[in-house]
């Protein structure tokens, strides 16, 4: 026998279940009057720096059916590549940009939608710049532990080609699963980012 380590084990994950909205977005499921506004709905205000964009898409299961009960959270840097977090040691982020958002997928269409800004570049561990990206975290009934992935931008080809994280994807055709496609809606740029949980087009998910 040897001495025992004193570390604890992380609490095991359990599925968010079909009713996560009760806790995460109660007003969205008509539980009103408990708190005024659901957290994470608004990322951008009139004073936020950067290019305003719309991020939208759907989450598909292995049969190609969109999930209508998922919840998506995003976490991203500001326009200068700084995170609005006490753990950010490189400088002070834009105080008018929280960088965190949360949206349910629509109960009928399955579409999610964030109004945010395009983030700046953030350095990798060795100092090389990563391409602009948004971290996604997806939970739902049937997902036993939250899924982490990243959105990259289709109009950042040069930066994407040099991104040290994208370079780690062995099967190069799978890089495309992380690239959101630029479009336009009422004069605002949109990026469509569909997430495939399973199947030929399965999104690259990370163990971070």
């Amino acid at each position, binding site marked *: 026998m040897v001495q025992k380590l*004193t*570390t*604890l*084990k*992380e*609490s*095991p*994950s*359990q*599925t968010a*279940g079909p*009713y*996560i*909205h*009760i*806790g*995460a977005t*109660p007003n969205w*499921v008509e*539980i009103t*009057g*408990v*708190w005024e506004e659901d*957290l994470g709905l608004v990322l951008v205000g009139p004073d936020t720096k950067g290019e305003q964009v719309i991020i939208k898409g759907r989450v598909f*299961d*292995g*049969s190609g*059916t969109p999930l209508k009960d998922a919840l998506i*959270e995003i*976490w991203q*840097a500001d326009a200068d590549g700084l*995170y*609005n*977090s006490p*753990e*950010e*040691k*490189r400088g002070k982020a834009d105080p008018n940009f929280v*960088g*965190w958002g949360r949206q349910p997928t629509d109960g009928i269409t399955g579409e999610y939608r964030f109004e945010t800004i395009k983030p700046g570049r*953030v350095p990798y*561990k060795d100092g090389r710049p*990563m391409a602009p990206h948004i*971290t996604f975290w997806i939970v739902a009934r*049937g*997902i*036993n*532990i939250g899924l982490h992935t*990243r959105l990259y931008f289709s109009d950042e080809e040069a930066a994407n080609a040099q991104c040290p994280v994208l370079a*780690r*994807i062995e099967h190069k055709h*799978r890089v495309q699963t992380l690239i959101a496609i630029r479009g336009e809606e009422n004069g605002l740029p949109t990026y469509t980012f569909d997430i495939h*949980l*399973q199947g030929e087009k*399965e999104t*690259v*998910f*990370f*163990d*971070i």
Partner: protein
Amino acid sequence: MSDQGSFYQRDRNWHPAAFTPQYKTSVLRSPQYPLLSLDNTISEMTGPRFGHNKIGPLDNDLIRNFAKTGDPIGQRIIVYGRVLDENARPVPGALLEFWQANAGGRYRHKKETYLAAIDPNFGGCGRAITDEEGRYWFRTIKPGAYPWPNGVNDWRPAHIHFSVFGHAFAQRLITQMYFEGDPMIWQCPIVSTIPDKAGIEQLIAALDRNATLPMDSLAYKFDIVLRGRRSTMFENRMEGN
């Protein structure tokens, strides 16, 4: 504050696997490719922080925060505990959100169709932020067990859902709390996605008679553990832990 290292790798054999056929919905919602291992970058080592100003005075009181005509029906309980990291250090300023069914096992949700009655005085949501020692508490009623469409006769044990934000997005966690002594825990296809019995036991809150309010409420203790961080070497010193 000194720089800290990246987070300890998640023990994927301690958490449920993605594909757990006894929980049928996981079959088509589980990725089949291996996850791409990524040592934390700044994008994962940072995370949103929520101030106490976001929290209203009744947010941690599920007995009162939706009540219209009186108190909800059910066993009055207090749930309390600490949020710690794997180094057994408290995590202050962590946002916890919780949601649950009412005493009859019915959720207040537009897609919920179980025949048990809605309680007009119970919403089923609450939240709290941990104090400097990582402590939280809230008051609620004990949720009921309920049947769910999986097998033809599967039931969930009484449980409360928890969503936890630590200090970094790498720590983001959703889990469920169960109640000491409930035999249904060991019959549940969702509980059994956790491979290790000790892992399941980590999610069972202990009845704490010392923390009860006499003639008022029972009490359950539920500690939550988030991922811990490595120390870093700065010159010749270990920093961060």
